[in-house]
């Protein structure tokens, strides 16, 4: 059965690259362009199996979105994996505290992305 994953990134190129990596293992990728757009998708789409989220984005960054999602109580079990150029320990701790399940540093390797997504959606 196809699983649906939401990719939140302000770069359309990154969203497409993630889609290209995950399509062969049966994921349908839906896209959002920033944290505001991402939150709307999560609130409206009960079929999502997972969220992949950038950190630095206009309007609302990924960590703010994650904290708003946690505070709202919407989809508490939905796994969120951060995919970002950032790698500061303080940011990882903040993401973990807000409920993120993992962190990947860009530029990503397709095999590592696939393995991590499979692990978090198993």
């Amino acid at each position, binding site marked *: 059965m196809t699983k649906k994953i939401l990719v939140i990134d302000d770069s359309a190129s990154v969203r497409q690259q993630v889609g290209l990596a995950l399509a062969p293992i049966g994921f349908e990728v839906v896209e959002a362009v920033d944290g505001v757009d991402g939150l709307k998708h999560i609130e409206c789409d009960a079929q999502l199996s997972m969220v992949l989220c950038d950190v630095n984005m*206009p309007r609302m960054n990924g960590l703010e979105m994650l904290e708003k999602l946690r505070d709202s109580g919407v989809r508490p079990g939905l796994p969120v994996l951060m995919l970002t*150029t950032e790698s500061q320990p303080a940011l990882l701790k903040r993401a*973990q505290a807000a409920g*993120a399940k993992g*962190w990947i540093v860009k530029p990503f390797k397709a095999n590592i992305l696939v*393995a991590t997504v499979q692990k978090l959606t198993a």
Partner: protein
Amino acid sequence: MSHDKRLDQLTVLMSDAFEQLVEHYGSKLTRIGELRGELDLAAIIGFSGERVSGTVALVTSIEGAIALRQIAPVTESEADWLMELSNQVLGNLKRKLAARAAPISIGIPTVIQGKRLAVRLMVPGLIVCTQIWDLAGTCVSLQLGVLMEDDLDLSFESHDEIAVVEGGAIVF
């Protein structure tokens, strides 16, 4: 420490960041001495920290942007990919600076496009340098404008401030 020494150190870190990024995508940059042809596209991204702050511009021609696009498996457009590459260069540079006790925050990139583009960074005290590469016969450049603390020394390296390496993953 002299301005030249600090700028040399920062320029090496920035250049390494860009060369490593292009290598990650399976291509290779070759350093050249002079800009060739016209520049049409620039992705500009700012960074700020207590010890060092500035702007990096990834500047190239349409042909250079197409060559950069071809290193990735799929991209939306030359402009979108140039912005993302500038973001990834700064992400790498941020890790290198954090490892040298000079943490920075990075901004959101923007792209400008125009015929015979000239990017000139003008802030009092700003030190500017340009590094130029050949990629598949095209010209790609990084322009760095930077303000630095007088005693900034980027020669010492520690990895305490890096939680995950590039391309790596951690599951909480």
